[in-house]
């Protein structure tokens, strides 16, 4: 009997202590909450799902880096939301008659975050870095033969041949200008001229930026990027009001009620690539049949909830020089089935390697596999981790089918160049003499209209020969705090924090 009371007593004590803790904490929380609501007004909180790959714009190709660095650094020129190129750090620029020289006149009132003045020397240093052995984009800037500093505020770039996309190469976030001699500490301590400077980066936790004073008045001063890998956590935080800006998906939009949703057409391209070295896939007719077997509209609905623009070639509709090729081989299962039968390729087996890290591509791959099954092609799905994908599929071209996306560019040439037959990133193994010729003439053609015609021709050829089933150019969906104004995203996956404001 006695021990029973003992037990009861201890249990009672425990409950009492626990409940006392609970009560006290609520009171404290009430106090905290009052302070909190006032604080959030001048600070913006943005959720991102992964850490940037270092904050050095010259040493990575990860868009997770550029989302941040785009606000820390400036480029000589920049692109507007409509894809126009306008001056930024350069107050003006001109291209010589022969198209080989580009001269920038720089602004003389710009300072780096550490107070030093911005001059042409910094530009020269930055491009030296972009073009050295450690620069991942070295190849894209290889055609520049000379960089001449004329005076403190004038700089010349000379190319080996006239180039039409010359100027757009200076607008990408990876052409950012860093401080002369700032060296290899940039990955963690960036020094730029941009509207925001880095206050603190705690890996896997947050990145805190602070507005630079003389820049854009009225911009939000404190910005925190919260790194939240789980999308459910992101959306839940947004609903609760802890986060002001998230990128989200179509199914979630419906659950957000009357939150402010912003849709922006992106110029990246998502596709199912085919390996033309495969004994079956080298047959153009089979590839056409495969294209006809896939109902792209249904696919976009099923995987992306309809948020995306159907495409017929490796070219997003928002980009200049687009031609609609979506009807080249329209969806027609019966015809596709018939074609496979005629070709005697019924019952063949193809492997499909899908990158696990991108659930949407895995989903799309599964749906396509089902569709191909219906026309008599067996698909063996293999999901592999991204690192393996890069080695096996992209590097060694050891695959039959794969679903993947390609990041957007300002100029169509940068998208299409990978179809050149000698390119090492032509993982389709696509070879076409006409495309090769067109690509080399596009590069040097200065007349806009002629160039656009060439772009259209390449698109048409790709749509007809189907080195890949082109699926869609995605639409990015952002959910933002309803008091937030001025949000625009640029076609190349970045957005400007300085344009954002809270409603008064």
């Amino acid at each position, binding site marked *: 009997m*006695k*021990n029973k009371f*003992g*037990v009861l007593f201890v*249990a009672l004590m425990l409950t009492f202590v626990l409940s006392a803790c609970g009560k006290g*904490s*609520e009171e*404290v*929380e009430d106090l905290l*909450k009052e302070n909190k609501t006032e604080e959030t007004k001048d600070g913006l909180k943005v959720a991102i799902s*992964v*850490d940037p*790959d*270092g904050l*050095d714009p010259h*040493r*990575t*190709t*990860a868009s997770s880096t550029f989302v941040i660095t785009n606000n820390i650094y400036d480029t000589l020129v920049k692109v507007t939301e409509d894809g126009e190129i306008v001056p930024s750090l350069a107050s003006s620029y001109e291209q010589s008659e022969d198209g080989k020289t580009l001269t920038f006149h720089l602004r003389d009132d710009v300072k780096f975050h550490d107070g030093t003045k911005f001059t042409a020397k910094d530009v020269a240093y930055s491009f030296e870095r972009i073009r050295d*052995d*450690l620069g*991942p*984009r*070295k*190849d894209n800037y290889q055609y520049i033969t000379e960089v001449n500093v004329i005076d403190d505020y004038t700089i010349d770039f000379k190319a080996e041949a006239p180039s039409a996309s010359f100027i757009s190469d200076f607008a990408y976030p990876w052409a950012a200008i860093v401080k002369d001699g700032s060296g*290899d*500490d940039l*990955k*963690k301590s960036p020094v730029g001229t941009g509207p925001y400077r880095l206050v603190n980066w*705690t*890996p*896997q*936790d*947050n990145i805190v930026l602070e507005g630079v004073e003389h820049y854009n008045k009225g911009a939000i001063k404190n910005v925190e990027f*919260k*790194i*939240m*890998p*789980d999308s*459910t*956590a992101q959306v*839940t*935080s947004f609903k*609760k009001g*802890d986060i002001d800006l998230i990128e989200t998906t179509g199914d979630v939009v419906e659950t957000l009620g009357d939150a402010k949703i912003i849709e922006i057409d992106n110029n990246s391209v998502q596709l199912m690539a085919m390996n033309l070295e495969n004994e079956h896939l080298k047959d153009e007719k089979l590839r056409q049949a495969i294209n006809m077997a896939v109902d792209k509209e249904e696919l976009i609905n099923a995987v992306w909830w309809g948020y995306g623009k159907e495409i017929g070639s490796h070219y997003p509709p928002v980009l200049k020089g687009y031609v609609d090729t979506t009807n080249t081989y329209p969806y027609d299962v019966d015809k596709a089935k018939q074609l496979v039968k005629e070709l005697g390729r019924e019952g063949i087996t193809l492997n499909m390697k899908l990158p696990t*890290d991108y659930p949407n591509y895995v989903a799309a791959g599964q749906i396509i596999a089902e569709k191909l099954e219906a026309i008599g092609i067996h698909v063996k799905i293999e999901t592999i*981790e*991204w*690192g*393996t*994908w*890069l*080695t096996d599929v*992209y*590097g060694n071209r050891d695959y039959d089918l794969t679903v993947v996306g*390609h*990041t957007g560019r300002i100029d169509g040439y940068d998208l299409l160049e990978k179809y050149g037959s000698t*390119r*090492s*990133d032509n993982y389709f193994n696509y070879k076409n003499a006409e495309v090769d010729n067109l690509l080399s003439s596009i590069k040097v053609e200065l007349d806009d209209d002629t160039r656009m015609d060439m772009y259209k021709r390449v698109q048409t050829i790709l749509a007809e020969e189907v080195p890949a089933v082109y699926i869609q150019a995605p639409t990015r969906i952002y959910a933002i705090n309803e008091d937030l104004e001025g949000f625009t995203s640029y076609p190349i996956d970045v957005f400007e924090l300085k344009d954002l404001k809270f409603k008064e």
Partner: protein
Amino acid sequence: MKEIIRRIVSSIVLIIVVSFITFFMLMMIPGDAVEISLGTEATPERVRELRAALGMDAPWYTQYLSWLTHAITGDFGVSFTYGETVTSLLTSRLPVTLSLMVMAIIIAVLALTIGVFAALKQNKTFDIIARTLMQIGDAMPQFWIALIFLVYISAQFDVFPISGFTPFTESVYGGFMSLLLPALVLAFGMIATLIRIVRSSMLHSLKQDYMLMTRVSGMNPVVAIIKYPLRDALIAPLTVIGIQIAGLISGVIVVESIFSLPGVGRLLFSAVLKRDLFLILGLVSFIVTSVIIITLITDILYILLNKRMRREES
């Protein structure tokens, strides 16, 4: 004593062997940091050149030896992704994971008390309820519990933040609240096993002859229980604590991802995804070392306690 020294020496050898195996495996698997950092945006040629420029094309054994010689002097290299030293990354992330684990263990130990009650009241209502709850909790995947907590508790009550960690140095209360739910999820995984062990150990000792003796000799039953079965019961979990802590690390990765806690588990996970070689090596070596030290301590403790108890009993 000799035994202990021998164990320490062999443990050091073990840690080096583990680091070697890790390194070797990382060299063998496809994909490396450069490839992943460049993605589909650069040509494969560029990847090769960049690798050469970073000295990553050297034979793997020279790379390993150079890492090892540096590591012995305490220099674990610089993370490719973060451009920061592995040591500073680790030391800044460690408090989060450590407090998370300590809290989970505290919760589990509190729950042990329940296990003790359950044993005393075998087959009574309390025992049945406690066992049912713990059984169901034990049968649920951790990420499921975590998500349910997140959506149905964090989202509804402002007391619990959905994401992130408030350092204890900033606010003890905030830190506690930011870790409470994640720690609870982790504890769920341990509680059931611990209670099971404690319970069976208690039942075992309660049936021993010496318990009858205490009753015959008129000893206060509560004192008797505390003196014998309870002590047995609390020593029993020591044997599995090593396994438990090692198991915790997998759970930590999941829980840290869902609650967006900037801890060591997530750091390790993303390091493997990005093939951040030095970071992986540093973290794996660190984790292995700490688990080995903990097992060592618990083993020694167990031996000592056992010896003392035997002496007392006889």
